């Protein structure tokens, strides 16, 4: 996939995140499509590409937000590293891996954003465990629901993009 197509795809994801995702939300929670795209790409194409995707996508989201730059891009890059590490530790083809990685990535992404929000605000932004559970669990559930919707098309895209496979040839 060339640079322009990649940029177009990532811009589309950022726009969907800002416009469509809130409509598919559950109370204050909404599916984190950008996070899912980064996790899936890290699993199918490795951490290096996913890190670039996370940076570009995160900067796009930062532009759509009124927060300081880095509020989205830094947690997304951390997620790319986590998912990429998971791929190298376990075998990336197993279908359980995307589920496990989505759970871990959602928690990491949420906690990092809360920590950064606390830094910006200059104090805690959580007023109890119920707040943490009340916000992270619905996001997790929505992410797991949306995972198959994004996983299979992105995996197909990655395979198509990877070119012909090397084989042993016919005798």
């Amino acid at each position, binding site marked *: 996939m060339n640079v322009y197509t990649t940029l177009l795809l990532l811009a589309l994801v950022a726009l969907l995140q800002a416009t469509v995702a809130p409509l598919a939300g559950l109370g204050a929670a909404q599916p984190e499509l950008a996070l899912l795209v980064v996790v899936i790409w890290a699993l199918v194409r490795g951490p290096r590409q996913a890190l670039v995707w996370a940076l570009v996508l995160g900067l796009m989201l930062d532009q759509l937000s009124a927060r300081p730059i880095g509020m989205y891009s830094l947690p997304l890059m951390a997620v790319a590293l986590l998912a990429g590490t998971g791929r190298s530790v376990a075998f990336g083809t197993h279908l359980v891996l995307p589920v496990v990685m989505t759970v871990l990535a959602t928690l990491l992404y949420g906690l990092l954003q809360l920590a950064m929000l606390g830094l910006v605000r200059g104090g805690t932004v959580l007023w109890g465990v119920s*707040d943490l559970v009340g916000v992270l669990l619905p996001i997790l559930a929505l992410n797991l629901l949306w995972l198959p919707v994004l996983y299979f098309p992105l995996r197909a895209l990655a395979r198509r993009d990877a070119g012909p496979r090397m084989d042993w040839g016919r005798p």
Partner: protein
Amino acid sequence: MARNSLGSRWMLAGLLVGASLGFMRGWPGVAFVGDGVAQVLAPLSAGARAVKERGRGLLAAPGDAAQLRDRIDSLERENAELKIANAKLGDVTRENERLRDLLEFKRGRVDLDLMGASVEATTFAREPGSLLHGIWVDVGREQGVAVDDPVASNRGLVGRVTRVLERSSQVRLISDAESSVGVRIERSQATGMLVGTPAGRLLMRYIPQNVTDQEPQAQVGDLVYTSGLSGAAHFPPMVPVGQIVEVLQSDERPTQDAVVRPFVSFADLQLVLVITDWRPEAGFGAAEPSGVPVGGDANEG
């Protein structure tokens, strides 16, 4: 002559038979026979009529079918147009209701109208994350919107403008964790600071503790309005905010907190009012809410 007499005889006989039958029509026996004949003939007659009609229909079918098809097409078109018109009418009605509500809010706040323009804005996108709560509105610098302008809807306070572009602005909702608003409980006049949380809950903090033998400062069901007080007084006073649904009291602290349910449903915000040119009057903004401890961690949002 003989032939003439034979004809007149037959005519006479016919008249006699006719007169007799007419005379006998009321007799039961004759009526019975007539009914029987009618019953036998009725199905045959109906069948014959049906066959005739069918035959006529078959003969006329090609022309009629074409006409009917045209008619169905025209009715379907009409139906589709009516459906579209109905949907548009529904949209217009809903928009009309929303605008009426906004107008009512504006009429109720003459002080704000006098001081500047209120710009109606349509929200078109939200903060791209679950933990941060904001919206974009389609009015910006061109329409006179400035950073820190308060934003409200007909139901109550929505937030304040945090970033302004040429034709769009970003609004931080009061449910955002970075937001804080000086508020007052209508019943007890107790003041406090309303802060948002990542989960989108509203928490009224720093409400003074209850005094013995006096009404409690905060109760479930109390209405909460903006106080117009706080560090930079970003919000005009007496804008409805929400209702207290839970009081979190602790004897170990000098103040108490309360969970507030907002009047505005942030999930389906469509039209909002950006209150432009509103600036705190002299005296506003100097004072902190009565319950805020000196050096508290409540930052203005």
